[in-house]
Structure formats: structure tokens, C-alpha cells
């Protein structure tokens, strides 16, 4: 046990690595919140597009399906490398964007595909009689979506959304491969400098302590809903 404890959990190295890893971890936090904000907006849009009725909307629906197929199927690691590679081509005349921007783009591309499916499941879980009632009152398709279907759908998918949010949060660790200096990169740096794995341990602790409150919050929401639904039966 001696070498293991020394390599991973030496108190001295823990304390010494913590500030450095924390500097990187703040980048993970920023990545996660910025990407999640984009993901929620784009995924909701795509989910609505996928549900559009009629022949005219067929190309839009097909594009949305293609998008989810591609980005749910491609590993995030590859998407990161490809976004980074694309950025170096300088198509937009920007000096290849910033690494942070590229990371946000890759995370958003991949997680939007997952979260679209979550929203879509939520939309489909709203009983058709609700749409029928809304349409029969003279509300348009989009008004029905906005005021009747989406509020109910979103409420139902909060737990799986939080689940994907936890996934996103952990996957921000992957962006070190394109050179974003976040927690994992800082931890690696520490390991190199001091030949000690405490950096990684500290990073793990940070991630865990970020995830736990989110997981408890998810549980709480599920319990709350169960209580409400039981109350309906009584």
C-alpha cells in the first residue's frame, strides 16, 4: 500500500497540486456551463423540428435525423480533433478561433445530438389528446407546442437532462487533447513536474464533488414527481 498511497494520496502533494488543478478545473466549469446552455437551446429546436408535420417539412426532419445519427455515433474525442483541425484551416478568417471556443463547439455538437433525443422522448410522451384539445381551441401548431406540449415535455425530462449534464461535465476532461489547459492537463503537468499522481487524484475529487450535488438534485426531482403522481391516484 505504501507506494500507492504515496503516489496518489500523499497529503503534501495533494495540497500542493490542488491550487494548480483548481485553475484548470475552473476552465472545465466554464466549458460545461457554456456548452450546456447552447446544447439546451439547439436540442430543443432540433427536437421540435424532428416532430414537424407534413410533407413540406420532410427535408428539415431528415436533416435533423442525419445530424443526430452522425453526432451520436461519432466519439467526442474524434469530434474534438476534427473541430480543431477544421479551425486551423482558417475558413472564417479568424485566427483559428480559440481553443476554448473549439472545445465548446465540439461538446455542443455531440451533446446536442443526445439531448435532442431526450427532448423528443419528452414531446412524444405528451398524450395526443392534449394537442387535440389545444388545436380545437384555435391555437396554431406552434402555439400548441409552446404553451401546451413543451411545458409538459420539459418537466418530464428534467431527470434525464440532468443525467446528460453530468456526462457533459465529465467529458469536458477530454478537451485537454486539443490543448485546452483544464483540470486533467494541469494534473498531468503536476505529475510530470513532481513524478506524483496526486494531481489526477485531486482532479477526480473535484469532478466527484461537482457530480454529487447534481445527482442528489436529480434524485430529489424524481422523488418529488413520484409524490405528486401518487397524490393524483389517491
Amino acid at each position, binding site marked *: 500500500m505504501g507506494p500507492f498511497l504515496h503516489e496518489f494520496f500523499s497529503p503534501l502533494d495533494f495540497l500542493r497540486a490542488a491550487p494548480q488543478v483548481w485553475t484548470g478545473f475552473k476552465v472545465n466549469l466554464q466549458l460545461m456551463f457554456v456548452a450546456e446552455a447552447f446544447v439546451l437551446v439547439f436540442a430543443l429546436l432540433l427536437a421540435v423540428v424532428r416532430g414537424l408535420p407534413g410533407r413540406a417539412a420532410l427535408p428539415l426532419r431528415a436533416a435533423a435525423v442525419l445530424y443526430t445519427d452522425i453526432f451520436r455515433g461519432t466519439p467526442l474525442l474524434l469530434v474534438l480533433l476534427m473541430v480543431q483541425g477544421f479551425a486551423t484551416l482558417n475558413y472564417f478568417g479568424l485566427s483559428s478561433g480559440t481553443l476554448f471556443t473549439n472545445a465548446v463547439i465540439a461538446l455542443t455538437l455531440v451533446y446536442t445530438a443526445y439531448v435532442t433525443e431526450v427532448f423528443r422522448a419528452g414531446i412524444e410522451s405528451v398524450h395526443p*389528446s*392534449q394537442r*387535440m384539445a*389545444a*388545436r*380545437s*381551441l*384555435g*391555437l396554431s401548431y406552434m402555439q400548441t407546442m409552446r404553451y401546451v406540449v413543451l411545458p*409538459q415535455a420539459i418537466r418530464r425530462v428534467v431527470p434525464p437532462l440532468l443525467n446528460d449534464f453530468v456526462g457533459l461535465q465529465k467529458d469536458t476532461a477530454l478537451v485537454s487533447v486539443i490543448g485546452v489547459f483544464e483540470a486533467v492537463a494541469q494534473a498531468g503537468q503536476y505529475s510530470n513536474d513532481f513524478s506524483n499522481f496526486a494531481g489526477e487524484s485531486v482532479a477526480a475529487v473535484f469532478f466527484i464533488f461537482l457530480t454529487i450535488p447534481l445527482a442528489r438534485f436529480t434524485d430529489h426531482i424524481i422523488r418529488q414527481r413520484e409524490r405528486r403522481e401518487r397524490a393524483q391516484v389517491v
Partner: protein
Amino acid sequence: MSENGHLVSLRGVRKRFDNLEVLHGIDLDVAEHNVVCLIGASGSGKSTLLRCINLLERIDEGTIVFDGQTLTGTKIDVNALRQKIGIVFQAYNLFPHMTVLQNVMLSPRKALGLSRAEAEERARTLLNTIGLAEKADEFPDRLSGGQQQRVAIARALAMEPKLMLLDEITSALDPQLIGEVLELVRRLADSGMTMILATHEMSFAREVANKVCFLDKGVICEEGTPAEIFSSPREPRTREFLSRVLESGRL
């Protein structure tokens, strides 16, 4: 008002679901301020007929004229049309994420463009009329079935429709809750609202209807005044249906 003083006129209406034709050529006239009751076994096409009238279902053949406007053309604005035709469903279909007041206010605000204050005033007046003013801020799930159905009627009335379609609105209710809903429908009839009801409540149909239509297998088998249909039905199928209803104790 269309020709002959009829608010609604159906001619040769046919509706198919895949290969199953559920309406085989329906002709029906409803005069303004009249109440027409559709009776018949489950599956006879009553609900489908009502849904065709406010275009929740597209008909395959025939014409529907409402308020002088042919609904079967392609240029019809369905949203504008549905604002003039209220429908109430068997399962209430209230919006569970909104309070009673919000349920009633939603379409006047969003479809008619009323201000919040106007819509709220209209909604509160209606809730008062149906005796549920004190439930305005409750969520539908906390109301009894009868109360929910009365809210659903108020929600439809909030659009100030010219025609109300009631689709077996008491069929999901406990017997002791049916009365309060029928009482509300009776008051609506007395106020001159034009209505088409699909119903299994024969004694109620007899009391409020100006005309009763017996549907069987997608056609109107027999129609007439309540006295004609319930006291001296001509068609054997009508007689058979009514005697079955009588046996089950609903007349």
C-alpha cells in the same frame, strides 16, 4: 348563417381510416339555436362525425358548410374556424400544467389576442357562471371529474363559439357527477347555444334535443324529434338499440 337557416350542413360526408370507412355518407342539418343529439352504439361514428366538423379529422368525401363557409375547400383557415367551434371531450383534456384560470385564459389570449386583463375577466366571469370561481387557482388534477368537465366547457366557451360540439362528455363521470355537467349543458341550451351532442344519456337527449339522430355503422339510420325517435321509432335497428339501452336502465 348558411342557406335554409342552417348553421351547419353536412352532405354526403365520408371518412375512412385506412381501409375502414367509419362514415358512409352523412347528411345532417343543424339550425341555429338548436340542439342535435347523436345517439348510437360505441363505434357508430358519433365522435368521428364531431371531429370532422371542426376539422380535427379531414373528411374524404362530401361537404361541410358552417356559417355560410364551406369547410371542405383547401383554403380554409382551420385555426380561425376552430375559434368559432368549441368542442368538449369525454376525457376533459384540460392542460395539467396550468391552473383552472390559466386553462380558460390560454386560447382567448393567444388565439384571439386578448390582453391578460380582458382574458382574465372573461375567464373569471365564466368560472363564476359554472360555479367554480373559488377553484380558479387550483390545478385540474385536484378537481373532481365533474368539476374538470365543467372547466373544459368553460374553456371552450371562453372563445365565444357559435357552435358547441360535446363528445360524450359525461361518459367518464361517476353517476353522481353527471348531473352537475348536464345541468350546465341544459343552461347552455336554454341560452340559445347551437350544439351537437354525442351522448348515451337518453333521457337528457329527450329533454334538451330539438332533433335526435340515430347513427348505426356510419350512417344516420333515423332522425326526428325526440318524441318520434324515443316513442315511435320507425327503423328496426333504432328499436333494437333503444330496447338494449332500456334494458341497461339508462332511459
